[in-house]
């Protein structure tokens, strides 16, 4: 009886490859089931609030998802200005990011070269983090006007801190044994910087840049809202839609801005893992 079942089962046994494939699919399904369910639940709550909580005359406060799609996102007359605004904002964010990256990495690296520089700069770099940028915004407008230049400055200010501190941390965490090895080889300051310190600090620098890339998007949208002169960015549009009570356009613009933020973050995560993932674990995930 027992032997019979065993042979019968053996005949039908799937190949190892098939088993692996199924296991992979099941694992993938399992790991994405919960996030997918959460997304569906979120949309369900959205519908419930639109139709059950809000009376028809107040439904404009939160139009249901399909209306946001049909009235705004699917309509080129609405979508095109938003995409254009997003491009303007992206340009400002990009410019601010590059400036912040150059200044931040340079400052972070310099602090490591001389102790007195570290003592002179670091407290103020920390200060930069706790100063509410929003409080500085009127002053920036007063000095630099209410257009693109000021938007870029807001981006730089908001992105600078994470880059400086992470670069600084990266340089400080260079292994002591490796430093001694370079002492032993009578390495010059330049050799030390290029062959030891920069590569060793790269994972931290990339972490700083990744955090800053998220911050800079926020900075650019805040900048749009306060410095509305010149080409309108997505933040300018969001402000305008709010004033005109165009809630479906407002929600569509928020969705687009969020997608942009997610895209930027994803690009930096990928960049990080491409540059240092081979030898450093921080590039693998997160």
């Amino acid at each position: 009886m027992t032997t019979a079942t065993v042979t019968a089962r053996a005949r039908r046994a799937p190949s190892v490859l098939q088993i692996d494939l199924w296991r992979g699919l099941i694992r993938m399904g399992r790991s994405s089931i919960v996030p997918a369910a959460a997304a569906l639940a979120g949309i369900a709550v959205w519908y419930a609030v639109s139709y059950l909580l809000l009376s028809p005359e107040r439904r404009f406060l939160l139009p249901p998802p399909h209306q946001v799609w049909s009235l705004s996102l699917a309509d080129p007359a609405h979508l095109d200005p938003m995409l254009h605004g997003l491009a303007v904002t992206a340009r400002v964010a990009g410019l601010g990011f590059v400036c912040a990256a150059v200044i931040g990495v340079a400052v972070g690296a310099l602090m490591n070269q001389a102790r007195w520089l570290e003592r002179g700069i670091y407290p103020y770099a920390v200060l930069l983090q706790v100063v509410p940028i929003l409080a500085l915004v009127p002053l920036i407008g007063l000095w630099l006007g209410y257009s693109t230049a000021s938007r870029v400055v807001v981006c730089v200010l908001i992105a600078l801190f994470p880059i400086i501190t992470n670069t600084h941390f990266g340089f400080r965490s260079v292994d002591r044994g490796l430093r001694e090895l370079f002492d032993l080889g009578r390495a010059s300051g330049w050799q030390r910087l290029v062959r030891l310190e920069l590569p060793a600090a790269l994972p931290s620098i990339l972490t700083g840049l990744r955090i800053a890339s998220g911050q800079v998007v926020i900075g650019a949208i805040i900048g749009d809202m306060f410095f509305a002169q010149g080409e309108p960015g997505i933040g300018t549009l969001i402000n305008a839609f709010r004033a005109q009570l165009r809630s479906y356009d407002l929600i569509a613009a928020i969705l687009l801005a969020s997608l942009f933020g997610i895209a930027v973050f994803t690009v930096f995560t990928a960049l990080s893992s491409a540059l240092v993932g081979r030898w450093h674990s921080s590039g693998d995930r997160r």
Partner: protein
Amino acid sequence: MATTRVLDTTGDVGAGDLTPGEQVSFQQVSMTYDTGTVALQDVSLPVRAGEFVAIVGPSGCGKSTLLRLAAGLERPTSGTVAVGSPSVGFIFQEPNLLPWASVRRNAALLTELAGMEPARRKERVAASLAAVGLDGFADQLPKSLSGGMRMRVSLARAMALEPDVLLLDEPFGALDELTRQEMQMQLLSLYDRERFTALFVTHSVDEAVLLADRVVVMSARPGRIAAVVDVDLARPRSLELRFEPDYVDCVRTIAEHLRRDR
């Protein structure tokens, strides 16, 4: 000797302080750290060219400090340290490899810092990787290597410079017993081939006797030389040596010195 590097409290000075046949010489060296710890007190130790000297002693007896002085990583508080060659290799306790660089790039690092010409560098790096049996792993990253293999890379990196003096600071302490024996044999075969002058710091009396021509026994606080024991055992040596009566006698003598002078 024109190439002699002499360290004293004032830094490098030009005059040679080595008698003929000497490669490294510590002369009345004392070392007190800023914290007030006396690491070495009045240590004198001449080392002949091509000699293999092991230094054993309890923790804190300043044996690592001796090596760091010879490498020029520290300066003595008083006395002089003379080294007869500018070509000095140092093997740390840790392999100290650049994690982002391949085995080959790691092995080439010191030759590049020393400004060796590319053609010769390439040849030296390939030869020293082959000498430690890592020629098949040249393109791997350190993280994919075992602890013993990482130590081999560190050895190859030092050997690529063709050092006249090799300083080893408890290099095999972190390895398991079998890997450790493998590395000891590896080092012995490199030594038999190249005949560099070796200063080898270790906790292990067995290791010291197996490798060295002379074993320096140090005592702690302050670090002083308590005894110097000659090891008259023929080369080339193998692990079988450990079962010979002469070897066992040597180990016993040194162990007694260590016990008495601790």
